[in-house]
């Protein structure tokens, strides 16, 4: 007995120890170890390279050459993966041909681990020279000193950058405290996709610019159909993006509200304002009262996990430009795009990705040479085939600015309202989860008292804000 118990004991202690370690590691308890592969990206290789890059690729940097007069090696961190890496590689290839003294290494980290990766690299003092981050991460990273101020480079004498080349509004998300820390890679506002097939089938005119919430609702109601009379909706008016908080900021802005005070100090009177309540109620009613939107199939998925629009079972869809390429080729959809409807205000919100130079980089000069190429007119010439171009002349020359679909997206830049994250680096840790809970609640439970739920959210967010300081 004694012996067996002893054995089991040591076993137990071992397990418990392991348990603690795994817990300490952040609960990666049952995730399989990532597949590590080394991909060294070199100009000569890219030419013949196929674009397929596995999602979990981790590129381990090779040591910088030591010899005198050797190439400067720049490392570029990106959260893009798969096909999204193609434009990066293309621009890098072009740049290296024009600048033989610099070698650029792309270090992609896919599957959502990107920020964790670059943060640990920064903590270890060895981040890539150039880092790509998304809009709402900008204040947090910049405020903690992760990025170098680009001002001196932009107006510098050797490689100046004319910031007048950009479309309106696309520089703003890269700014903090009046300084430019990041430059734009790509962007997307929101818009309403519509399926002309369904509008034609039910003899309804296509929605037009400057429509209102009322017209939007009426259109959605007309197109919500129970075609086989079994009491279940077969065609939906509009597919909405579920409890997606950043997308929801459009509704608040259109209702004439905002979610946080301009100085970022309080949510009270903003997150729980009558305007916010109106927006939440209308959004909830689209799901539960008017029943023109299919309930989210997967609350956790980006955009609600619905696929009614893709399968021709929803007439409209409010979302960003990301799925557009697929929708254009989808045989179920004859695609049209129109700006989101106006409430009290004609508003939109911007989603954005950009590049900056790490404050820890030892090659900031060289990094700037590459960065200004990456996000400048030459770079935009490549990005334009993958996303909306940020440079006005490129958008004009490619015809995108006047395209019936792409022109709508670009035109939306005229209607941007500030996102909540620009007022505080703590948005994501404080009010964002609180607002998400409210949205989940009203979508799941139509009887939710919206003003009370928002009051509770303010309390929670305010408490979290205090914890941050």
């Amino acid at each position, binding site marked *: 007995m004694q012996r067996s118990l002893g054995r089991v004991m040591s076993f137990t202690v071992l397990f418990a120890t392991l348990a603690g370690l795994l817990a*300490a590691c*952040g609960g990666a308890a049952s*995730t399989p170890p990532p597949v590590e592969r080394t991909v060294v990206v070199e100009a000569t290789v890219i030419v013949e390279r196929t674009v397929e890059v596995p999602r979990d690729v981790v590129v381990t940097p090779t040591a910088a050459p030591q010899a005198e007069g050797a190439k400067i090696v720049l490392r570029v961190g990106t959260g893009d993966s798969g096909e999204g890496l193609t434009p990066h590689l293309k621009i890098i290839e072009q740049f290296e041909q024009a600048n033989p003294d610099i070698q650029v290494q792309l270090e992609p980290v896919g599957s959502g681990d990107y*920020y964790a990766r670059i943060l640990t690299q920064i903590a270890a003092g060895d981040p890539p020279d150039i880092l790509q981050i998304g809009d709402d991460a900008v204040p947090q990273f910049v405020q903690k000193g992760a990025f170098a101020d680009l001002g001196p480079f932009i107006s510098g004498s050797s490689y100046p950058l004319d910031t007048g080349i950009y479309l309106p509004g696309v520089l703003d998300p890269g700014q903090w405290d009046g300084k430019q820390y990041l430059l734009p890679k790509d962007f997307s506002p929101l818009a309403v996709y519509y399926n002309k097939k369904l509008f034609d089938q039910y003899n309804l005119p296509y929605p037009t610019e400057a429509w209102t919430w009322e017209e939007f609702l009426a259109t959605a109601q007309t197109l919500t159909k129970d075609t086989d009379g079994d009491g279940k909706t077969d065609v939906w008016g509009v597919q909405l993006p579920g409890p997606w908080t950043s997308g929801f900021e459009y509704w608040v802005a259109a209702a004439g509200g905002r979610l946080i005070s301009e100085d970022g100090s309080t949510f009270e009177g903003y997150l729980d304002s009558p305007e916010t309540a109106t927006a939440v109620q209308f959004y909830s009613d689209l799901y539960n009262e008017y029943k023109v939107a299919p*309930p989210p199939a997967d609350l956790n998925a980006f955009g609600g996990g619905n696929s009614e629009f893709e399968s021709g079972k929803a007439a409209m869809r409010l979302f960003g430009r990301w799925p557009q390429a697929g929708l254009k080729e989808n045989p179920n959809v004859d695609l049209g795009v129109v700006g989101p409807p106006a409430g009290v205000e004609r508003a939109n919100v911007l989603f954005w990705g950009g590049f900056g130079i790490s404050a820890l980089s030892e090659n900031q000069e060289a990094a700037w040479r590459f960065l200004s190429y990456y996000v400048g007119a030459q770079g935009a010439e490549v990005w334009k085939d993958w996303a909306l171009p940020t440079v006005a002349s490129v958008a004009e020359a490619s015809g995108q600015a006047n395209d019936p679909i792409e022109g709508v997206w670009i035109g939306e830049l005229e209607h941007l309202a500030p996102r909540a994250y620009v007022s505080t680096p703590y948005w994501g840790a404080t009010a964002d989860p609180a607002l998400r809970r409210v949205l989940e609640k009203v979508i*799941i439970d139509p009887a939710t008292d919206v003003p009370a739920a928002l009051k509770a959210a303010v309390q929670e967010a305010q408490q979290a804000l205090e914890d941050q300081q």
Partner: protein
Amino acid sequence: MARLSATRREALTFYLCISPWLVGLLLFVLGPMLVSLGISFTRWDLLTPPRFVGLRNYERMLNDPLFWQSLKVTALYTLLYVPTELVGGLALALLMNQRVPGIAVFRTIFYLPSVISGVAFVVVWMWIFHPEAGLLNLALAQVGIAGPRWLTDPRTALSALWLMSLWGLGRTAVIYLAGLKGVPKELHEAAVIDGATAWQAFRHITIPLLTPTIFFNLILSLIATFQTFTSAFVATNGGPLDATLFFVLYLYRQAFERFSMGYASALAWVLFVIILSLTLLVVRSADRWVYYEGARR
């Protein structure tokens, strides 16, 4: 060189032999654990140097509703899952212990889900649970039942995850099966001669002899369940309305989404203490209900 005594030499050989494991433990387990204990007394966002805050991270838990919610979800799920795994696994093992033709094939089939990667497994189940197009609700519709919205309804989400996990019973069952094979046949034969029914034989011979296996499975299951992560991370991300916010998922969020390394480390240590005390409790209780054949009592 002094000659070592036999026992000393034996001890030295022992440590030499286990040194690969020992070094690994010190370097990759004990080291990080101690560091995480240190971090738990700081605020650290990875970008700026850690700042010592004493016990504040631990105090913060007391007033953190999500901490309590995650603890509640985890405890509830453990209460739900551990007994079903122990009983269900045993039932499955008893079935797999039957002498019927092709039983090896069945054993393989039941064990199969255990070798599938956690994420792939969960993604398949997400399809099964899809409210409109999912297999489960389509099957329920065949018999006239309007299935719930499973993963998107806070009332059913946790049960859905529980249902999903039951697919992995094979692993527990295989351990039971090994235990069942170790039950001596002659005891059963003697019982049958004495007129015992199948149930009596099972209750008074099989079960007692199986207690070490049950004990082992209980501890394994307890620890694993308290660390549930993959299913909630992939299928629900803690939602809807935090109905599946498991402790480790909350910890992960604090560490790798909010980058509050200090708070996350403090959470990890609380979890460690909880798991350790529960495990010790079970081990202490073993004297009362675990029997080892041939052990002196």
